[in-house]
Every structure is written in C-alpha cells, then in structure tokens.
C-alpha cells in the first residue's frame, strides 16, 4: 500500500470534517486504518454535500412520480417527457459558500456545474435561471458581492451561449454573511437518447475528458458543508476558476460522441471530482473501478494521489466508452482541442482501487462508500406558530398612493433589470418571454411547443411558518407558470438552510419539506431533481430558510402565451381568487409599517388548483388579454407592474367595505391572479367563474396614464416606472 503519506491522527481526521464516530465507522467498514488518500476519499464521499447525511431521510418523502416523469432524483438531473419524443432535463444547484469568498468565480463555477449536469444527460442546454439572495443593502460587502455574482452568472452563461431568462434577487440582513447563489439549467433531449451515470460491462475503458486537473478547490466539497467563521478568509486558495470556453467545447464534443453512439455511461466531475464521479459510475452499475492516476492529465507537476482524487478542477467528465468506439471518440475530442485519456477500467470486484506511481493508494468497497455513508435523523423541533395579525389593528402610516410609490422602489419589489441586462437572454433566438414577466417562455426548437420556467420562494414566509412557506414556494412557481398559460409539469428544488445540527434549523427543514411535499402532491407537480445546501450560517446565525423552487411547464403553442402588460384602454380588470387582506409577513407590513412579523398567508392548495386551472382555461380560450399572478406586495403592486409594462393606467374601484383599504391593496393572500379582457366579455366570464366556484370580481378598467383608485390620489405610471427602475442602478453606483 501507499508510502510517503501522512499518518492518520485524530487531528487529521477532524481536519477532514469527519466526526470520531464516523471514523469508527470507516475502521469497521474496511477493517484497518485507512491510507491518507482513502481518508480524503471518505471525507469527500461522506460530507454533507455529497452524502446528504442530514437530509436523506426527509427527502425520501417528496413526491417524485408522475406519468410524464422519465427520471426523478438520483441522476445528474431530472428528466420529464413533454411529448413528441422530446424530453426536458433540468436541475438547480447552489454555489453559496464559494460565491461569498470569490463572487465572480464562485458564481461562474456554479453555473458551469449545473450546465454540466444537464448536458451530461445528453441534453443541449436551452435556458438558465438563477435565484440570488444577498445581505442587507447597507452591509459593507453587499454591493461587491452583487456586482461579482451577477457578472459571474452572466460571464459564464453568455460565453457558453445559453440564454439566462429568469430568476429572483433578494436582499435581507440574514444573508449578510452567507449569500445564496442558486443556478438552474434546462436542456432539451430526445426521450430515447438520455444518458445515465451507471457503468455496465466488465473491462470497459473509463475515459477522462475535458480540462486538465490542477490543485483547484481541494476540499471544496467539505467547504460547502462547513459553517463559516471569521477566519474563513483562510480557506481562500481553494477557489476554482471557471472556463466557459472549455465547457462550450466540452458540450459540443460530448453531444457529438453521444450522437455517434460511443457512450455507455457518463458522469460529470462536480464536487469531489474524480472520487465522486468514479465511485458513482461503478456503484450504480454494480461494478468495481480501477483507476490509474498516472494517466490523468494534470496541469501542475507533482500532484499526489490525494490531490488528484479531491481536485475540483472544472470542465471535466468521466465516461465509460464502448471499446470499439474508442478511436472515434478520441478523434472527436481532439478535434475540439480537449484532453482525452483512458484512466481506468471497470472490474467485477466491486472495489474502488486507485493506483499511482505503481502503488495502490486506495482499495475500498465501492458500494459501501456511498450506501454506508452516515445517515442522521437529527433532532428537530417545530417552532411555535406566529400570531395572525388582524388587518384592522395595523394602522396605515401613509396613504395608499404614497405606500405604492414607496413600495415599488424597495429592494424587494424594484425592477431587477440591472441584473438581467447583464445576462444574454436572447441568444438562440427562442426567448418568447424575456425576464420581467411571471415565467420566462422559451420556444422548443422550431415550435409550436414552448416551455414556461420560473424560480420562486418567499423566505420570510418559510421563517415564520415553514410548512406554509414550503407550500407557498411550490404554489408560486406553479402560479407563475400558469399565468403565462403553461401546464406546470415538475420542479427542481434547492434547499438552503442553516446548521442542521441545531434542532430549530432541522425543524425548519422538516417543515418546509412537508409543505413542499403537500403542495407537489396537490398540484401534481413532482420533484425530479434538487440539491441541499446546509450550514449557511455565520457565528451561529442562520440564513432565512430558503427552499428555492424551479418550476417547468409546457405550452402546446407558445404563440398563445399570456403576458402581464395591459394591452389597451377600456378593458375590464378582474381579480381572481379570494381576498381577505392578509398583512402578516407582507412587504407592506415590513417596509411601510416597519414590522417583520405575524403568520404568513395560508396556502389553500385546492383553491390554488381551481383558480389556476380557470385562469389557464381563459388563456387557452383566448379570452384573457393580460394575466399576472399576485405575490409579493399584493394586488396594487401587481396592477402597477401590469401598468408599467404597458404604459397604460387603470381606474380602480374603492376597496370593498369589508376590508381595510391598505389590507385590500397590499395584503398577500395566495391563489390570486389579475386578468384583463374586453369589457363586453366581462359579464359572461364573471358568470362562468361563479358557476365554477372561482372567486372573481371586477375591480376596474384599464386606461389613462395613471393608476387611479376611487377616493385616492392618482399615481402616474411614468413616475412609478422611474421609481421602479431607479433603485438598483443607483444603489450599485453607490448613490442609494
């Protein structure tokens, strides 16, 4: 066995993030002291990021099946059938910790990683989305982080050549020390040409493809699972640098050799690089793997086995090739200027053996490396419910018109144009609905099919009531897809939480998952892929629980998608869904009244379904001329967004007497939409909705150049738009 490696000491074990009982488990499993390389392999395989040891038990409860699901969680990405032999492949993943340390490179490698997950399965990426959470605007690091992350997300996607079509950006002091960078990629493949990670056949060549291996990110996966403290700056040299150019070549080369039928199995090298990818390929195929590290292309001299096994150099892949196709595959890779090396073979032994310089550096049971990883049912406590805030007890400190003007310019609700104008969102020529609407819509090849894509979560709801918050995140993604006329099909999730070793945090996690599961079941909207990011915590303070939900829906005809801009004056404005005036956890309560409290709006999933199906029906029937779902900021913010998108104003009736006006206009009751339609059709639609038991009222008429509520001051659409667009650019220029 290996010589020249450090001795295993308790300090070394701890430095690898392995707890004493976890080390005991290793000893029992292999019956001897591990080598240094083996210790590194265990630390990579058994950390939170790769093993999901704290979350696995709970993830099992998520609904993952539907007739249209081809591949649920467990592969590089989820796959759903959209008909006509076409499949959509998608997943979301976080790169939180690296992005805090080096925002540009952290974000680029995050986007690169998720794109690789998608094309590894044989899909050509057609769209990206991203969900970003930053600290309070006043925090001294925020501006620098926003600037670097946005440039990085754009830098990678723009160069790689995929449109970034949607996302979310939020600011909250609870992300001051732990920003979130969640990236989602969506690809398109033929249903009969999906590629998987499981190796098959003994003695098959295992081929290393892509960029060379360097000492990048060694311990990156462990870093992603470690809580930050004040000297996390010390961990800096593990930063990886993204090379979108290399990845673009890798994409084209991979798709070319897949089309040439050379590939048995394929796995990208993500977290814990060669280790995770090789072990997964073998374990999934019930095979052993022999690797010879002398064959691995390296870009630095003198790399040890340990370093090569743990390197997180980007833009690399591992493949099992059909032996008779080796030459053909190599020629394709050389044409694209990429490295190609046979680094090992599959074996019948079910062992993972790593050779370097003639020595065996590791010899481990391959299935147990994954299957026997620790699994924790960590203690969790549910928090006590927050009180429901009675709208009548909330005194409005200002009028409706002033509140509207104020809210539209808050970091939470203002335009995120400054962000998405740095993303190429038109490349490929298929972007039907660009950022700025409810869901992005992209055409599928030459049409007529389209995809509706959205990312959502409202962390303050999740914090106040994890179950409702989890439900709401799924419901909002579903609603955004519905609002453009899409049929919601499936989601990917990215579960960002604090330290799972604290029962309160684990309680948030369990609660959110429960809510997500319920919503997915009720809405027939299964989870097909996802990612968990824990330990988002600095000095004992966790982030707001943030389970980002990425939803995918399909439109049979993209030309019939609905948009949120008012189309013309004189149309009837209908409000669909029930309004009670729920102010608890609303943006109004926080930004206008300075109170961040109360129970969040409850989510009635059957109402969501009923109301959403009715709206989608109106879009498909061609009745609706503009559609927008209601979310942050409530009814008046949604109306303002529709007005600003069109330059057309609205005359609105006064709030009903049963609800205090500020609660009516700014409450955040769920399951609601605004729909406009020609005025002469309003009566018929109202009657139809009544018949279908869908709450629906007419609240006004489009027209003019101001938002005019009976009995309130008029607000000019143009000035509203100026305020809406002004905050983020001014803030980034250091002027706000």
């Amino acid at each position, binding site marked *: 066995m290996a010589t020249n490696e450090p001795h295993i000491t308790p300090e070394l074990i701890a430095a690898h993030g392995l707890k004493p009982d976890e080390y005991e488990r290793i000893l029992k499993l292999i019956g001897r002291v591990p080598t240094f390389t083996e210790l590194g392999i265990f630390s990579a395989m058994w950390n939170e990021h790769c093993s999901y040891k704290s979350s696995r038990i709970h993830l099992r409860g998520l609904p993952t099946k539907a007739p249209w699901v081809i591949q649920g969680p467990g592969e590089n990405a989820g796959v759903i059938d959209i008909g006509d032999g076409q499949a959509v492949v998608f997943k979301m993943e976080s790169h939180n910790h690296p992005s805090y*340390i*080096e925002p*540009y*490179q952290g974000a680029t490698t995050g986007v690169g990683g998720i794109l690789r997950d998608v094309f590894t399965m044989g899909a050509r990426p057609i769209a990206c989305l991203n969900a970003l959470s930053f600290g309070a605007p006043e925090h001294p690091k925020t501006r620098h982080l926003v600037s670097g992350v946005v440039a990085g997300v754009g830098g990678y996607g723009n160069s790689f050549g995929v449109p970034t079509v949607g996302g979310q950006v939020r600011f909250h002091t609870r992300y001051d020390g732990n920003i979130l960078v969640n990236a989602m990629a969506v690809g398109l493949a033929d249903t009969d040409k999906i590629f998987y990670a499981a190796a098959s056949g003994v003695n098959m060549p295992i081929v290393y493809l892509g*960029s060379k291996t*360097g*000492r*990048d990110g060694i311990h990156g996966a462990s870093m992603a699972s470690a809580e930050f403290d004040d000297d996390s700056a010390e961990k*800096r*040299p593990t*930063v*990886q*640098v993204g*090379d979108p*150019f*290399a990845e673009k070549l890798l994409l084209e080369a991979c798709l070319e050799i897949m089309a040439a039928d050379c590939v048995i199995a394929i796995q990208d090298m993500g977290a814990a690089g060669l280790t995770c990818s090789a072990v997964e390929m073998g374990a999934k195929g019930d095979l052993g793997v022999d690797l010879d590290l002398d064959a691995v292309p390296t*870009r*630095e001299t003198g790399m040890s086995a340990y370093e090569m096994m743990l390197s997180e*150099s*980007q833009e690399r892949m591992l493949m099992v090739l059909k032996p008779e196709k080796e030459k053909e595959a190599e020629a394709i890779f050389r044409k694209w*200027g990429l490295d190609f090396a046979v680094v090992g073979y599959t074996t019948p032994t079910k062992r993972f053996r790593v050779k370097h310089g003639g020595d065996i550096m590791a010899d481990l049971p391959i299935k147990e490396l994954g299957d026997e990883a620790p699994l924790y049912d960590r203690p969790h406590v549910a928090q006590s419910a927050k009180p429901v805030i009675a709208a009548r007890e909330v005194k409005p400190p200002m009028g409706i018109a002033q509140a509207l003007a104020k809210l539209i310019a808050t970091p939470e609700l203002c335009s995120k144009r400054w962000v998405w104008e740095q993303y190429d969102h038109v490349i490929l020529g298929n972007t039907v609905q660009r950022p700025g609407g409810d869901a992005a819509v992209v055409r599928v090849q030459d049409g007529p099919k389209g995809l509706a894509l959205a990312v959502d979560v409202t962390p303050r709801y999740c914090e106040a009531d994890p179950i409702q918050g989890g439900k709401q995140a799924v419901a909002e993604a579903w609603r955004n897809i519905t609002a453009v006329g899409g049929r919601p099909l499936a989601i990917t999730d990215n579960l960002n939480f604090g330290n799972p070793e604290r029962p309160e945090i684990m309680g948030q996690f369990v609660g959110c998952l429960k809510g997500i599961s319920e919503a997915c079941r009720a809405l027939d909207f299964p989870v097909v892929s996802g990612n968990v990011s824990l330990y988002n915590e600095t000095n004992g303070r966790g982030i707001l629980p943030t389970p980002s939900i990425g939803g995918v829906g399909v439109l049979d005809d993209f030309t019939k998608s609905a948009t949120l801009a008012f189309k013309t004056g004189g149309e009837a404005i209908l409000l669909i869904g029930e309004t009670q005036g729920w102010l608890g956890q609303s943006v109004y309560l926080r930004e206008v009244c300075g109170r961040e409290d109360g129970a969040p709006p409850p989510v009635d999933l059957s109402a969501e379904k009923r109301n959403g199906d009715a709206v989608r029906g109106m879009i498909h029937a061609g009745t609706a001329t503009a559609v927008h779902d209601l979310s942050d900021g409530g009814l008046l913010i949604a109306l303002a967004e529709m007005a600003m998108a069109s330059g057309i104003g609205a005359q609105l009736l006064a709030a009903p007497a049963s609800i205090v006006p500020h609660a009516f206009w700014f409450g955040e009751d769920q399951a609601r939409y605004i729909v406009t339609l020609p005025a002469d059709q309003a009566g018929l639609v109202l009657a139809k909705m009544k018949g279908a038991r869908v709450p629906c009222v007419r609240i006004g008429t489009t027209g003019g150049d101001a938002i005019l509520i009976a009995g309130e001051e008029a607000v000019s659409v143009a000035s509203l738009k100026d305020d809406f667009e002004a905050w983020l650019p001014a803030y980034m220029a250091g002027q706000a």
Partner: protein
Amino acid sequence: MKARVTVTLKSGILDPQGKAIEGALKSLGVDGVASVRQGKVFDIELAGGDKAKAEAVLKEAADKLLANTVIENYRVEVLS
C-alpha cells in the same frame, strides 16, 4: 510620479486565457513556448512627489480594487 502595478495570478490558479494563448501560438507556428500566464499592468500617474506615500497609495489601490487578492498577487513599483 509614474508608477506601475503588476497583477498576476497566484500559482496553481487556472488561467484559461493563458491556456488559450498557448494553443494559439502553437497553431500559428511560434515554436518554443512552453507555457503562458496572463496578468495585468496598471500604469498610474500619481499626484505629489513623496515616494513612500506613493507606495502606500498604490498598495491601497491594489488591495481595494486592482487585484483580487483571493486569486492574484500584485507588485508595486514607483518608476520616477
């Protein structure tokens, strides 16, 4: 006063630009180049004539903006 700040990538950090340039030089038939790493220079004109003070300003500029010290090293020279 004239000064120059030179910013280079730390060793071990991937340099995709350098890599692409290496490849291009090879295909252009420029022989004998084993490796290329790309960095930046900033030619800076400073007000005032105190060399020690100038160096301090340059260091501050490099730390705060010119270099990304997570992945880059820098060197400061006052030239005249």
